[in-house]
């Protein structure tokens, strides 16, 4: 079972994700939505690290490392697409 303090931390991170999700939905331009997505990615990585500490499982933190690298590639690709021109 999860400890109480980790539950509080994860609920606060969920609150941050909801605020960033509002920006993704409302954002007037496309770069606004990308900024929201990038923020959600970083918050999810710290949430996975907290999960690994709460359940005492190292596999969550390995998933966090792979998620960080893949989200970095996704962000770079979308930015390159917005910039225009040829790849």
């Amino acid at each position, binding site marked *: 079972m999860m400890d109480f303090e980790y539950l509080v931390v994860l609920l606060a991170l969920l609150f941050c994700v909801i605020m960033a999700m509002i*920006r993704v939905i409302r954002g007037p*331009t496309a770069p606004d939505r990308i900024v*929201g997505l990038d923020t959600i990615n*970083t918050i999810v990585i710290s949430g996975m690290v907290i999960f690994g500490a709460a359940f005492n499982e190292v596999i969550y933190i390995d998933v966090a490392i792979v998620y960080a690298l893949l989200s970095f590639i996704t962000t770079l690709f979308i930015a390159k697409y*917005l910039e225009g021109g040829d790849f």
Partner: protein
Amino acid sequence: MLEILIYILLGIGIFFNVLAGVGLLRFPDVYTRLHAGTKCTTFGSIFICGSVIILGLKMWYQGSTDGSVLAIHTVGALVAILLTNPTGAHAIARAAHKSGVEPVGAVVDSLRKKSTKKAVKKKTEVKE
């Protein structure tokens, strides 16, 4: 004693992550939102990963081998965050400026001339 340090680090990390969310909602512009949403989450993630590293070192000191693995892998996750997050923010800002989003209330924009020249050049090349 070490538990109190872990809780303090967790509290600082959560505080900065909530600040990132509030700044993302309240700021008027892409660039200021990027400032809030990237820097604050990087700083908060440093503190959250630091608390987990201290927890792993404490478990290792108490004699469990799981603790050292937890600490070392969390250092790997922290290095991944620290390398990728500022690079992605720079790429987003460059793409936003090149795709024509203006900063709100900016008096001087010395990058604008270069990018408009390039855009005009590209358009004329396409016409020819």
